[in-house]
């Protein structure tokens, strides 16, 4: 059950800066220094360079916004759930699910990554990344 749902996007181990929180697998442009998430190799969105390298991003940041979703059409996810926009300390902004037990959220509060049990398309249990208020 230690298998990750989206291993291309995150890993269980943290970074040197934030060792206790799962890291996100981003990228950095060797030409202009732009840091982005997720890693891609098509070309830098800022300058077009193909010199793109993996860059681990710490699983810590602050909350830009959150919303409780009451209506959801897609399969495999049942409303209500909460999503948030988090600016990572390493720069990029990510939008993803917030843990259900988070309680009231306030813009600006510190958030950190955590792994939570979810299911893949076949219904098998997998660990998926969430954000939670920093303990």
């Amino acid at each position, binding site marked *: 059950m230690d298998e990750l749902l989206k291993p291309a996007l995150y890993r269980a181990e943290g970074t040197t800066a934030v060792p206790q929180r799962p890291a996100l697998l981003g990228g950095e442009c060797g030409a202009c220094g732009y840091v982005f998430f997720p890693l891609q190799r098509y070309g830098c969105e800022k300058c077009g360079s193909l010199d793109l390298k993996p860059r681990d991003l710490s699983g810590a940041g602050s909350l830009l*916004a*959150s919303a409780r*979703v*009451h*209506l959801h059409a*897609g399969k495999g996810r049942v409303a209500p759930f909460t*999503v948030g*926009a988090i600016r990572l300390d390493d720069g990029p*902004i990510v939008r993803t*699910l917030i843990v259900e037990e988070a309680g009231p959220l306030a813009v600006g509060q510190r958030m950190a990554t955590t792994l939570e049990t979810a299911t893949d398309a076949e219904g098998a249990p997998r660990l998926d990344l969430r954000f939670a208020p920093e303990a």
Partner: protein
Amino acid sequence: MTTLKDLRPAYVAGIGFHRYQFISDTPYVELGLTAVRGALADAGLPWPAVESAYVAKALLPMAPGRPMLRHLGATGLPIVHVEDASASGSAAFRHAVMEVASGLADIVLVIGVDKPMPVGRAESLARIGGLADDAIAPFTHFALLADAYAARSGAKVEDIALVALKNHRNGAKNPFAQHQKERTLDEILNGKKIAGGFTSLQCTPVGEGAAAVIVASEEGLKRHGLGLDRAIRVAGSAGRSQRVYDDATRYDAMLTQETAAIALREAGLSPSDIDVAELHDAFTVEEVEYLEAMGFAPEGQAVPMLKEGAFDIGGRCAVSPSGGLISMGHPIGPTGVGQIGEITRQLRGEAGPRQQPGARHGLAHMVGVGAVCYVHLLSRD
């Protein structure tokens, strides 16, 4: 660089609509033909006068243009299909204006027509998935922006909902609107919950419909014995796509800001000159964000101005007098064309109970996923 100012003037000479409505059995051909025939009759032009056609659609399958337009008589005119997501109609209008302004054609049709159908987004085929893309539908994207706007400006959920109150009030007076019912703030706030502070009446409905406009040169109109008395000049046109912004989540507003600035500069107008504006209010928070981004309100001041009635019909600038996307609807392909139709009606002084008194300059704005943005300025000379 050449701008519209350096080319010959292009005018909106005719407008036509099929009502925006909930999905029905009506074939798209009938929706589209109703709007085209309406625009031709409004302009006083016969179909064979039309030299070129732009068909805006985002949801209908490939090449709906000729199977529709042949029923007006197959004249052999060139037909271009334009898809730019929500901004498809705005993109089509811009290209029709360019064709007329450049002198390549004198009379051009723009027709937006669509019916709701399941279509995917090409972006999902790039194989650069996010952490939980499926959890963030468009209404959730904007619910997140509403939360951030509230935190930034101090506005409350019920303040932002005032946009829906105004736009439903306007749409109730528009026979082509999908929602034609005035609502109380209570009804709006206590409706079906969608995401964040949004209820269903604060979100654009899914629907179908059609809108058409005829773009013409003075020479073309003259050739058919017509003058410029009801013609509305296209004073500015700008199209842009998203760049890399510091707050990547606010790309709609950032993109709107730079696109509007270009169009206003081209037209030699400032936001205070604009009497009437149709903007991309698919979700309430968008209207306040874009009013600030385009310079109609200082940063954080759109809500107080909304409360004072500055954006009501009869206020400083009537915003979404048609009802906007929230009330008139957003059938996608037609939406940007319909905005041009509404602005034209307003600048002609023919908007009846929705008329903004003395309207001389109007602005139309759409964003589309991707993201892309268009801003057009129309003026009565």
